[in-house]
């Protein structure tokens, strides 16, 4: 599995171009997330693809050939943080609820909706963590789930910013502050 980050023009059709390119290279996309950046004209994508390093190089280099892609970078080998977010609706009656709450605590998930027969949990973290929670929730009855797919960022001073943006921290964007 390879993780790439791309900055792209935030306009119609760009996602199609990126997806179409992966299809043409016969690379299966495991997850692709896209969202705006601090610059509304630029969107950031995190692409997790079923391919090897060679395939990732081709994908990266081919992505950068697209006019609407400002930058594409394979960050798989770099020190990085990956996060996935899931909303999980799980069956919860009076009996199971206390046990569920224990698990939720262990996994640092949050309850964001409570209904007579179910709860909605919000959990973020690595894919493994979410998969782990899912595993233990299954016996209670997972009714519905939505996951965002991974977003990723390189650690520390290893910055990956869109071309044209200041290369170090600016006043509008403090860096290095732990959350």
């Amino acid at each position, binding site marked *: 599995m390879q993780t790439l980050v791309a900055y792209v*023009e935030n306009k119609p*059709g760009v996602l*199609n*171009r990126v997806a*179409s*390119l992966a299809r*043409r290279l016969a690379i299966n996309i495991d997850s692709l997330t896209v969202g705006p950046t601090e610059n509304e004209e630029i969107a950031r994508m995190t692409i997790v693809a079923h391919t090897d390093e*060679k395939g990732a*190089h*081709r994908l990266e*280099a*081919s992505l*950068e*050939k*697209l*006019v*609407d*892609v*400002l*930058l594409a970078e394979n960050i798989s080998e770099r020190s990085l943080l990956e996060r996935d977010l899931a909303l999980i609706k799980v069956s919860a009656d009076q009996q199971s609820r206390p046990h569920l709450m224990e698990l939720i605590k262990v996994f640092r998930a949050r309850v964001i909706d409570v209904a007579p027969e179910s709860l909605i949990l919000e959990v973020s973290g690595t894919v493994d963590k979410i998969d782990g929670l899912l595993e233990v929730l299954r016996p209670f009855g997972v009714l519905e789930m939505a996951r965002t797919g991974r977003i990723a960022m390189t650690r520390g001073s290893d910055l990956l910013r*869109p*071309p*044209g943006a200041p290369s170090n921290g600016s006043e509008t964007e403090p860096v290095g502050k732990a959350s």
Partner: protein
Amino acid sequence: MKLTGAEILCESLTKLGVRHIFGYPGGAILPVYDALGKSKLHHILVRHEQGATHMADGYARASGGVGVAMATSGPGATNMVTGIATAMLDSSPVVCITGQVSSKLLGSDAFQEIDITGITMPITKHNVVVSRAEDIARTVREAFLIANSGRPGPVLVDITKDAQQASCDFNWEASTPKLPPKRQRINYEPADFERAVELLNNAKRPLILAGHGIMVSGAMRVFDQFVHAGNLPVAMTLLGIGCFPASDPLNLGMMGMHGEAWVNHAIQEADLLIAVGMRFDDRVTGDLRTYAKEARKIHIEIDRSEINKNVKVDAALIGDAREVLEQLLPRLEHRERGDWLGHIRELKGDSAVKDIQGLPDNGHLYAAHVINDLWKETRGEAIVVTDVGQHQMWEAQYYHHNQPRTLVTSGGLGTMGFALPAAIGAKFAKPESDVWVVVGDGGFQMTMCELATIVQEKIKINIAIINNGFLGMVRQWQEFFYDKRYVATPLVAPDFAALANAFGIRGERITSRADVTPTIRSARESSESVLIDFRVEQEDSVYPMVPAGGALHEMIRRPDSPLVETATEP
């Protein structure tokens, strides 16, 4: 100054230096045609939109500039697809302008509405829909910039009818391209460069693989200096032919599937390959596991995605071929290479005795003779535009090009039907040149409707049909690999000379070798277009041949009696 979108388009094209547009009108592009009529642009009416794209492509390849094709929405646009893909695979700068239904109808399945940007996404370098007159000038400028920069390629601009009809202020100066800011990558580290220099100067058996990129970057002069400074033998890709004179003793000729044996053996025995502006296509390498096992590789290439794609290289110098060669040249040391060059000469001597050219006239007409006679009679100075198949390979083997952009051929996509329309484009790009179409009887029948375009435009093109009554290359594969089961390759054709006459073009039919040169000469001397139907041997094959996926050094060689039974005395 207020202009309609259609007028802005014509103004913009004029300001970009466009003089010729190859196109076909229709409902959704009519406002542009109305404006074209009032402009100084010369519109060439084609007979099929595929022809328009090939013409624009031929124009681009012969001139080095951008070719422009135009069509209406729907079927007009979809007919362009093959031509666009042809340009894409051969990195040819073509701008296609298509009409589109009005923006309020988009997505409604309106009459002649088709999502042409969706269809052409994987076969264009870029494409875009324009639905506001205000955006036309900037978008067209961007299209030209994208098409002819870096690794060139086709760009399609789809303009809605309401954008063509709407009026707005036209301000050329303000309509500068606004392309997204791309990350500037470091092309290569000094260490890569030093490694390349070291490999170059220490190689005992170096060989250059010269590709189309040399022509695209205009590196011919520095390439010539580079070759002679290092005393480096050169093998050509099909599309590289012309970037370095065939007459130069260091030019070995074409490599690959139908490359001469000495060229492919030299590749397999080399200890260093210097690939310049080429992409290790499978028709060039054969089986990758056995390809140039002895050789280190330097890859000079502008497209980063080509590096290590097919062949793993030891030093990648990413960048414009001319710039990279200019940087390498001062560091390159001259070597005598007597053993290596002598060895290649020996390989060549071995193959040359089996060459069909050396055979006496035995009453049979062979395609190779026709091509060779054409080369001699035109003194190698014609622009030859070929189709795809056996005749294409014979052209590459027997017509020796000394000038860049004098061979126009569809390499990557291998598009039959390319030659005739591409030659029309080439003629408009180089009106003073002697333009020859070399085409098979199969490919010619795919786009022969463009004969009418030649007549309507009153241009002078010579057409040599290498007519063997078969889809020859496919027949050859059937002969070699399918036990001569000739399924769907025998081909009935009209009387091409009579057909030419029906179009108003002089037609000739040649069946003997003695008539070849006089007829070519007479065609050259004629002020009008001439079509010559050369009736050649039906079951002749192109040698040598590396079977698809086979090792480059394991070729099917010319038979000792190269012309099989037909060549022997009756």
